[in-house]
């Protein structure tokens, strides 16, 4: 069955409205994008959407109880909850530097889980 979906491309702030005609996982036509990034974004959104996962990880002996983290690149949307569970079961010891890798290649996506802030150890 041929379906049409209209997406707002998030590749850049322009936010082009891109219309995709597709059947199952096969792209038929893409219209409305102002650049090739829009085309690849639209294709991916229909076939296998990916997202950056921003979340937090528990910290031991840190100035705060949680350190914010993110994936170093977009990972498949369908992996979100499993990734959350894996991250939820880890505790990191402070001090932490922005960019520290906590989990390498999570769920074999090629993305690492890294710290998005510095955090000193707790002052006792």
């Amino acid at each position, binding site marked *: 069955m041929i379906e049409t979906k209209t997406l707002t491309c998030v590749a850049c702030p322009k936010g082009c409205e891109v219309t995709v005609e597709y059947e199952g996982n096969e792209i038929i036509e893409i219209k409305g994008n102002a650049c090739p990034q829009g085309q690849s974004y639209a294709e991916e959104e229909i076939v296998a959407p990916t997202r950056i996962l921003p979340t*937090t990880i*528990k910290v031991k*002996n840190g100035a705060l*109880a949680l350190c914010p983290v993110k994936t170093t690149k977009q990972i498949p949307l369908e992996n979100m909850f499993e990734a*959350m*569970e894996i991250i*939820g*079961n*880890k*505790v990191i010891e402070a001090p932490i530097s922005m960019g520290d890798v906590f989990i390498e290649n999570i769920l074999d996506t090629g993305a690492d889980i890294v710290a998005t802030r510095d955090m000193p150890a707790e002052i006792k």
Partner: protein
Amino acid sequence: MNKKYDVIIIGAGISGCAVAWKLARYNLDILLLEKEADVATGTTKANTAIIHAGYNADPDKLKGHLNVKGNQGIREVAKKLNIPYEEIGSLVVGLEDDNLSVIDELYEKGLKNNVPNMEIVGKEWLREHEPNISPKAVKALWAPTAGVITPWEAALAMAQNAVANGAEVKLETAVEDVMTEDGKVVGVKTNQGDFEADYVVNAAGLYADEIAKMVGIEKINITPRKGEYYIYDHAKDFAVNHVVFPVPTPISKGIVVTPTVENNLLIGPTSHNVKSKTDLATTREGLKEVYEGAKKLYPSLDLRDTIRVFAGLRAADDSEDFVIEAAENVKGFVNVAGIQSPGLASSTAIADYTAEILADEGLKLSEKKDYIETREEPVRFYEMTNKERAKMVDQNKDYGQIICRCETVSYKEIVDAINSPVGARTVNAVKRRTRAGAGRCQGGFCGPRVVDIIAQELGIDPTEVKQEEGNSQILEYKIKELLGSKVMDNA
């Protein structure tokens, strides 16, 4: 269960606390029991906070006898115990189309009740003293002895003073039965054990009828009567200088517009009977009634700057009067029931009257030698000038950390509120004592900090900190708990 008390008071609302305060000046072992986690969590925390002058109370009822006496009494106790109180006076304002003769009737009733210094005033007086009032306002009853108070602070101050004089207060202790033997009271059964006493005072507010039934008294029947309110941020551009009532109708005292002693603007209440003693919900219709009533008196009022809506329940007995009397069928049991308006204003007089009844029942009242008359003024940063605050922080650095931005409440005030006698155990208890969370952001900023301080001071986990009632935890889960995380928290 070893100690035997002279008097057990059931219910730590304004009535129970006032009785405890009164009896604490005598050589008696007093126990004040409260089923919730704080004093004043029932009707006492959700009313119009008015100390009535006394012209509205029926001279033929107990209300009429005790209001004016109580009005004088509260003024004295407010000074002694440092309870915020302002004698701003009240007006019953008649608009063009109202039945203005009611104002004269109230004046006459006031005279009968010995209300001092009342006057009938006209348009000019109103224009000068209440500039924002409706241009249709033509006549008013002016009663300078009315005032506004912080009702939960009054109850707390009396309870704390009672404790300073040797009384005991047990919170989270619910009376399940009153025990009698040979037609005499011998004590109470509670969820925290049994307590023995020769005298029991029933000041259980909405539940006074249920407590009375425990000793076979059927005549008391409490119908919860709901009143809804809007409260505004601090009265800024919109000045209301007195407690302003409309002309009452046979069914309702009407929607009041008043500044509170903490300088908020308060409008309400409605007056409708409800079925359940726990129905504290505000309603669309009720709030509309409040707003429209207030607007009649103050046409330029709008709903901007409101910060909260709430409802309270009056404990209305069928007799529509206070029921303060010794039980006939059982010795040593005194009811202090049906305390709706003017219960707050009459509280000290109710306490005196109750003491007299207990004496008649045989309780020996001999005055204590080292009785402590006063309560030290609590530190209230929100009332202080910057100079005064600077002085406090020089004395103790813990005053230097401001937790509640909207009301300017320091860390030390919150810690002290938790650790004082009859200390705060919940978020709302902290709010009532310190004002933290009572401001325009309603705890949006200070909430997490207050929860943390309570957890620290009580030695509990933040997920155990409650807002008010038994099942009102603020936070249900630790982070990652819902993901089935198996990692333990570091302490």
